[in-house]
């Protein structure tokens, strides 16, 4: 033990343990703007840096890919910046660079997003380019074949990647028979079958005005925001929304092993969770912080990593999709010891389900969850992202003011009720990829 100079007179241990209260609130003022054409925009004016962040969120997403065309929407989205209107792929990239516009496209099971980051000085040119990209992808033969090969290469690589195998297997067995079970990157067969007509149809399904949400953060006022959004969406069809088929979330309990010659086994586990609008969602969120969401403050990390050195990373989280809530976790442990990790995780699941948490656990969870909330709002990009999330989850424009109150209102009784309802140790479904010993 090395003591070059002690600070005992300066710092008392008691001081470290006293938990301060009176946490700052997220200081973000959201304006609800309606564009001339009627589109709702959530706007935060932030003039201190000459940039503008714009996020468009479109309901729908890759679950709409037809059977046999798995991976289609990711393929289409991968082509959105590979040529638009009168610009081919190279001209599009050069134009983006020349006007300092960063335009990104992504898609997940339930939505497609388009994100733009612009300098104020070239905002108008940036909006024109983003509008062109959204409305007029060219789907030229050259980029289609190039991107097809990239996707096929990615699929081949994921066939031996333990994390990809585990995730794919877990989702496939959990959502058997439902579009959510399909591999979102596709299969070699499905990707090879995609035609230019498929891509155009996918584009039309992904980007429409029905189910569109918009957030903007930056050096821009409401009037300008309305004007640029109308330019972005002028060419979009109204379209229609489709309901996700009813989901039966029934992961198979137990442990499924997939043999792979790697030194360390990768496990994904979980069972049914809660929908975002379930009244128990917030108490469950707080509970999960204590169980496996809170990094070094969580029980899983304490028991699996800190006490036993079984893993570098162990975690759990609640996640939702339209019509489905999941409670998922992951761990990676040497083949010889993965069985022990699984035992410990099951035991912690059971302990919390039967014993609940202590008053101290709950207080610490609340101070973290409320106190760290402002950390989500320290950049324009993060704020724009969060505003889109709030809209797509229908949390209400006053959610930022309400949210810490919802956390603070959670009681020990709530946690007990939710733990009994949500945590089902016997229902946990593990997929283990590696050469596990003793499973």
């Amino acid at each position: 033990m090395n003591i070059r100079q002690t600070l005992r007179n300066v710092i008392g241990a008691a001081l470290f343990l006293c938990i301060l209260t009176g946490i700052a609130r997220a200081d973000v003022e959201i304006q609800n703007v309606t564009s001339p054409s009627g589109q709702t925009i959530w706007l935060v004016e932030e003039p201190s840096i000459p940039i503008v962040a714009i996020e468009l969120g479109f309901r729908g997403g890759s679950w709409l890919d037809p059977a046999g065309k798995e991976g289609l929407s990711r393929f289409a989205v991968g082509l959105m910046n590979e040529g638009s209107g009168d610009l081919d792929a190279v001209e599009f990239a050069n134009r983006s660079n020349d006007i300092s516009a960063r335009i990104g496209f992504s898609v997940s099971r339930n939505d497609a997003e388009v994100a733009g980051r612009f300098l104020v000085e070239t905002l108008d040119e940036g909006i024109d380019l983003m509008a062109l990209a959204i409305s007029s992808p060219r789907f030229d033969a050259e980029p289609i074949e190039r991107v097809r090969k990239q996707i096929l290469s990615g699929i081949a690589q994921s066939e031996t990647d333990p994390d990809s195998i585990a995730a794919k297997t877990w989702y496939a067995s959990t959502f058997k028979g439902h579009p959510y079970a399909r591999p979102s990157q596709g299969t070699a067969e499905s990707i090879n079958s995609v035609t230019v007509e498929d891509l155009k149809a996918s584009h039309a399904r992904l980007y429409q005005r029905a189910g569109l949400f918009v957030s903007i953060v930056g050096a821009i006022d409401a009037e300008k925001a309305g004007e640029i959004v109308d330019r972005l969406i002028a060419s979009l069809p109204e379209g229609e929304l489709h309901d996700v088929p009813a989901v039966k979330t029934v992961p198979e309990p137990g442990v499924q092993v997939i043999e792979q010659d790697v030194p360390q086994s990768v496990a994904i586990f979980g069972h049914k969770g809660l929908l975002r609008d379930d009244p128990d969602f917030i108490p469950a969120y707080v509970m999960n912080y204590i169980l496996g969401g809170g990094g070094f403050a969580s029980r899983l990390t304490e028991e699996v990593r800190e006490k036993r050195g079984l893993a570098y990373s162990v975690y759990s989280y609640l996640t939702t999709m339209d019509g489905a809530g999941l409670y998922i976790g992951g761990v990676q442990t040497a083949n010889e010891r993965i069985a022990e990790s699984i035992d410990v995780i099951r035991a912690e699941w059971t302990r919390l389900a039967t014993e609940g948490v202590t008053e101290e656990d709950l207080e610490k969870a609340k101070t973290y969850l409320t106190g760290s909330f402002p950390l989500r709002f320290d950049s324009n990009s993060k704020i724009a992202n969060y505003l889109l999330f709030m809209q797509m989850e229908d949390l209400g424009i006053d959610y930022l003011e309400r949210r810490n109150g919802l956390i603070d209102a959670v009681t020990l009784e709530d946690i007990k009720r939710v733990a009994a309802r949500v945590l089902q140790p016997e229902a946990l479904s593990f997929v283990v990829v590696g050469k596990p010993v003793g499973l």
Partner: protein
Amino acid sequence: MVVHPSGRNSAWARETVIGGVLALFVLMLTTATVRAEPPVTTFSLDNGMDVVVIEDHRAPVVTHMVWYRVGAADEPRGVSGIAHFLEHLMFKGTDEIPDGAFSKIIAANGGQDNAFTAQDYTGYFQRIAADRLELVMKMEADRMVDVVITEDHVRTERDVIIEERNSRTDNSPDALFSEQMRAALFLNHSYGTPIIGWRHEMEELSLGDALSFYERYYAPDNAILVVAGDVTPERVRELAETYYGPLKPSGNPPDARPQEPPQIAPRRITMTDPRVRQDYVMRSYLVPAYDPEDPVNSAALMLFTSILGDGVASRLSKTLQLEQKIAISSGAWYSPRSRDATSLTVYGVPAPGHTLDEVENAIDAIIADLAETGPTEEELVRVKRVLRASRVFMQDSQSSLARFYGAALAIGLTVQDVQGWPAVVEAITIDDIRKAAQSHLDLNASVTGSLMRGEAS
């Protein structure tokens, strides 16, 4: 879309941050300018600790970081991984902070903490409400001098870092290949040793190894404090003088490291692994890092690299993917920020039906052509514009800014160097780029590697 082999020389962190939301968003970090540079204040404490304050009053939060000018490259031979192992052990506790409580205290105050180890530096940070700055500073100052580590900690945490190596290196042929490439590139410099450590040496790391590294290097005159966020320089100075000010300097900066001899023979490695499903070829050149005395070289190499391999409109992509159609992906990267010589790397992934040799030969021709004739005026103007914009976009994230400045100071640069860099880049000419490429992209100082599917090598 881009298919990337892994290969960047990134830092190792104590904790992987897991996103709870599975949005497939790889958004570039962002920000930008009327104000070309953020408001940065810098000063030093009497004990030699450098301080950088970056004001950002948009949200009531701060990022507090302490950087030590010591990393994996400073490890004694035979104890590879000790810098990173110590970084993990620094969270165990101090004479004032109970065992295992460090991160829990931060969390109970609504903060997030983590740490990272690179070849040249080790950093510890907290993100927290601005009114908790004093708390985290007290704690960080405490563990600079009074960490408490036991044999029990070492036994358990050593298993954790071995699992970390399993997760991030041994479970991935790409990562193993990248490790082999670096080991072959550096003949004498410790940059050839992986930050995480070689497994057989990690297994033997001891409490004594950790403490002697700590005692040798952790001191205020070998550290940099960076505070970014909703705080004034005056307040930071007051707190820093209170908590870091009393700590005794070591008067013993890290030793210079053994440097590379002239490299006079190209190296070639071939690695096979049954898990590989996509072959590719990669080349790393040993090249100079940013040198404040002669910044033109590294600025020119940076622009060269970007024009060569950044994006679909780059030379590599246009030729290999769009025109010849012999590759499905390619790229290049160069990080000028390094204390000693660094690497410039290019790679190409062959399209079905084409060979690694074809792709390598084509890459050679593209590099030779760009080095010979230089970029076009249009390419040069464009890449400068991209770099100018990225500087503005970067201002959006206080954590990124804090890291940007911290990393620069940790490798021996100054705030003036950081702020003068855009002007250096602006002044680079086509001739500068030709000259830099011609003098530094030397096959004799390079490794060319092929990763292929096959029996384990």
